[in-house]
């Protein structure tokens, strides 16, 4: 059948490909500045990642792309490559131990006929977290492979000219989503023990580099003694052994809390703790009619529609003279900032009876929850109007009808934790939100983050040994090692610029020429 639209698309694609040929490589490189791992590792790396969503599912798809794809497939699923683009059932084994991990379908896509344009492989395996983790770990032990950065498959596809114009335009949104997800994840880690360790290392390394740079740029004319370098020697040695030990002992440090982070927030006595207890079906939090009962975060892991959810109840937001309560409110706001989804609980009896004014009241309320005083994105928030049993029936109907689909407001659910009225509808809305979040493998997939951190830390250690190697023969090359180490660590903790190093130099030394 003649389909003009497909021809039109074909022409478009050809034009776009021509237009982009010279530019796409540059964008790819440009993006790698932000991508994290890439800047430090070769472009020819083979990457792998779980491509299906996180959470309980029947089948999980693990994708591999890059020159070592064939090696990975051979070493994990039998020596002979399957015919291109044909699904075969194979035993999937660990390349080192030979232990069988799962039986599943494998597919082989030789370049250029694949999503990324590179050699790639897909493993369709059983969806349990244990199997997925085992397969990802096994892939990581194949030489030349590393975990993919978020969105890296798409970028490679882009580089190979496999995306059309609309997809290219979507890339900006993708990057935006990624950075948002990464930001949330980073915030979670940085407020934990692991974040503390990384920041401490980064701080030490910065000082170390500043002292070495000071010795290079100023020592001939200034009173900078060789003792400065001895100090740097010791720091580098210490750091190296600390990071190595951290890499060896994986259980140490913080177990990253997995799952979608859902935070319950709102004014005091709106019924936040009641909602938590209703959702986890047990009295996890103390409930009382006294405003300000919950002061710290109460966390509990629940299963919502088959997806792992970490539910946090927070202190009610109000101005308070009580220091403990103030801290509770601060923590509550911080949690909201780090959350994948916020449930804003409102006492429906406090709503103005006029619906127009009620909408204004709610958006005002939304802004007050966020630490930046900005209304959170509508898909990251649900409005829960609690205590519906206390409203007259007419008011309930009015609210239900008229608050649905008010632009700029997130989804609104009217319920009563007392009578469980409206709970079923709320759970449906909640489930679909959680499902959307879990369908995105970025939301709380701890194995990927951990693997990324490992890769950076390993680079950091390798770079520090460059310092040791050149310490006595060439200080410029030795300093280069510390610079590289700081760059690797900076990919976890944030970039460090030359000005920052100079600031430390001028703070620490009396430079006068």
């Amino acid at each position, binding site marked *: 059948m003649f389909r003009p639209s497909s021809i039109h698309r074909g022409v478009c694609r050809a034009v776009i490909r021509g237009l982009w040929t010279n530019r796409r490589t*540059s964008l790819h490189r*440009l993006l790698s500045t932000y991508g994290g791992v890439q800047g430090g590792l070769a472009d020819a790396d083979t990457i792998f990642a779980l491509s299906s969503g996180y959470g309980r599912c029947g089948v999980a798809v693990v994708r591999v792309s890059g020159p070592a794809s064939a090696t990975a497939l051979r070493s994990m699923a039998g020596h002979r490559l399957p015919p291109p683009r044909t699904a075969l059932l194979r035993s999937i084994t660990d390349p080192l131990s030979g232990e069988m991990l799962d039986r599943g379908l494998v597919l082989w896509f030789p370049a250029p006929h694949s999503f990324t344009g590179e050699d790639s492989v897909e493993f369709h395996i059983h969806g349990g977290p244990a199997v997925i983790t085992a397969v990802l770990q096994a892939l990581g032990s194949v030489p030349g492979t590393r975990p993919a950065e978020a969105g890296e498959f798409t970028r490679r596809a882009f580089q190979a000219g496999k995306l059309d114009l609309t997809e290219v335009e979507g890339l900006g949104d993708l990057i935006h989503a990624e950075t948002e997800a990464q930001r949330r994840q980073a915030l979670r880690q940085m407020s934990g023990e692991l974040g503390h360790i990384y920041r401490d290392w980064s701080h030490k390394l910065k000082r170390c580099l500043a002292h070495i740079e000071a010795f290079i740029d100023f020592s001939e004319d200034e009173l900078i003694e060789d003792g400065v370098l001895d100090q740097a020697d010791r720091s580098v040695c210490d750091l190296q052994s600390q990071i190595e030990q951290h890499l060896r002992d994986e259980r140490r440090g913080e177990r990253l809390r997995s799952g979608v982070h859902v935070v319950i927030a709102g004014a005091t006595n709106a019924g936040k703790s009641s909602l938590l207890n209703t959702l986890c079906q047990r009295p996890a939090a103390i409930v009382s009619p006294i405003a300000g009962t919950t002061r710290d975060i109460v966390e509990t892991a629940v299963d919502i529609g088959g997806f792992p959810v970490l539910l946090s109840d927070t202190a009610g937001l109000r101005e308070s003279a009580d220091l403990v309560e103030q801290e509770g409110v601060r923590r509550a706001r911080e949690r909201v900032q780090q959350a994948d989804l916020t449930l804003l609980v409102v006492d429906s009896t406090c709503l103005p009876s006029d619906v127009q004014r009620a909408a204004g009241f709610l958006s005002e309320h939304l802004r007050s929850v966020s630490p930046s005083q900005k209304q959170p994105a509508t898909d990251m928030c649900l409005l829960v109007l609690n205590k519906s049993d206390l409203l007259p029936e007419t008011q309930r109907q009015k609210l239900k009808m008229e608050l649905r689909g008010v632009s700029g407001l997130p989804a609104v659910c009217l319920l009563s934790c007392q009578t469980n009225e409206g709970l079923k509808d709320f759970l449906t809305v909640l489930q679909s939100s959680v499902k959307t979040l879990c369908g995105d493998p970025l939301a709380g997939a701890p194995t990927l983050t951990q693997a990324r951190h490992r890769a950076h830390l390993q680079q950091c250690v390798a770079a520090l040994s460059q310092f040791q190697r050149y310490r006595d023969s060439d200080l410029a090359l030795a300093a280069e090692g510390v610079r590289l180490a700081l760059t690797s660590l900076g990919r976890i903790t944030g970039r460090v610029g*030359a000005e920052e190093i100079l600031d430390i130099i001028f703070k620490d030394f009396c430079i006068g020429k």
Partner: protein
Amino acid sequence: MLTKKLQPVQSFLSLVSRSVGHFPRQHYDVIVVGGGHAGTEAAAAAARLGAETLLITQKIHTIGALSCNPSLGGVGKGHLVREVDALDGLCGRAGDWAGISFSILNRRKGPAVWGPRAQLDRQRYREFMQSELLSTPRLTVMEGSVEELLVTDPNPEQPGQHRVNGICLANSSHPISASSVVLTTGTFLSGSLFIGQTTSPGGRIGDAPSSAGLSHTLRERLGLKVGRLRTGTPPRIVKDSVDLSLATLNPPDSSPTPFSFMNTHTRCRPEEQLPCYLTYTTPGVERVVRESLHLNCHIQQDAKGPRYCPSIESRVLRFPGRRHQVWLEPEGLTSDLLYPQGLSMTMPPDVQLRLIREIPPLHKAEIHMPGYGVQYDFVCPTQLSPSLQVKSTQGLFLAGQINGTTGYEEAAAQGLWAGVNAGRRALSKPPVALSRTESYIGVLIDDLVSRGVTEPYRMFTSRAEFRTSLRPDNADLRLTLKGRFELGCVSSSRHQKAVRVKNSLQDALAALQALSLSTTSWKRKIPDVHVSEANSNMLSGIEMLQYKDVSFQVLASIFPEVLLPFMEFSQRLKIEAVYRPHCESNKREIQRIQEEENMSLPEDIDYLSLPVSLSQEVREVLHRARPSTLGAATRLEGITPAAVVNLFNYVCFAEKRKKTSHGNQRRQKEGREEELCASLPQ
């Protein structure tokens, strides 16, 4: 061989007659205002390019004056001198002519951070600069004070777009027109001098500041954002009054290394060199500073001074209770003065004398001329494009301290670059770029125009991301060839020399690579070097040269027939071999940055209304900073990755957009605009 001009320098009389004797032309391609380190390089570079150039300075006999320290080079600064020389600039050769004490700083820290440095004879430096400029073809030197810049009113089509047409001299009714004007006013723009509690207008002691008309044009007519910075200079001390036996002797290198790639030796013979002396401050110095603070205007001002070149006042106030280094440096071969590096001060002259006499070798010292402070205007350099042209004024270029930098070398580097660009503009040649990945000059320019300054900017090696590639030894390979064909500022003789060096190095490295032996054979040939056993493979000559104790000479003695022809490059080959693997691994990152820099953002872009998906914050950042390339945009604070992608899309589609609009000229304007918006990613 030294430079071609070994004959005595022309007398000032002949200089003056050359410029003032016949009436100047009515039009030049390039006018350079100022005869300091930036101005001399700018004028010479523009003339080398082929532009008919006029240099205007207050006094011809102060061209090439060293206003502050009698030295050139150092760590980072020496890198700049080598690069200016590689682009055929003057200061490297001038340093070789005037140097009286040469040393390589950081000799023990690796060749990437070696800092070639020399003490200079002030008289000889001036002589060289003046004779060089006055014998440069197409360059006219004239005494005068620029009263005003001639600028056109803004183009109504492009608001804020002025064009410079020339200059007007004080005491002259004849304007002189030019296609490009380079301003290198140094500390002279609204300059004022401070000693103790007295303040007087001036840019250097004995010299008037630049005219108020010039300041007015920059601020009011062109609306440029101007800031104020301060600097200072120490008193000059009578040599005979100093007891040098109480200071530590610091001898120069026994064999002077020239700055210039064109010179094999310096004018000063090794045994003629003069030493420097090192001494320290005492608690008495701190006491005098504290007691005289109320008499010290300059130190109380809030204009920003350099953190790394502070006056003795700020040093003892910031780091009390410490002793501070003071270097006693010769001012010339026959000069009877010493320059006390580290003792820049602005207190009243009698207190200055009391202060220096607290330092043991200076306890009977006499002051020839007191130290003083200078405050001056600078133009915030973020208002410049990477060619150092003022963004809002076509044809107006700024270089040196007017851009907020400090140091002779930083000024020279900018002067050369502004001269090249001013010349190219006047000769209607397309603009050129110098990346921070290929030179310290590029680092300097990029830092200035994309980040601006908060204190006087000085070069450090730590500012260069690719320090292992940007070495003083390879500045000719990095820049001379490019300088000849892309920039047009390099003479053919220098170019030929660089080509010969490049080919020889390539041949030598190929020969070394071809020398492939097993580990055991190498051990037999060089028994005292510990070749790692683990490496059982074959090792090439390059890999052997990477060992710390293996020099090119050692290899040449084993393979004389292949390697002896390259003996003159032995040091460079050793450095190349050691740094090669590191430079290779830098290459990918360098390429990425260069590609970003190649994607230029149109200067007239209106970020606030650009039909591209950008947040309001990002729009404001871009609107304020107006980055000239996508690379500069990515380095701005507050720019999100998503914004970069969308800008990238915009850059890519801009070309297509232009074509579309040209092709549809007959269409209604509205219709065209609709189409433009439609072709942009929303």
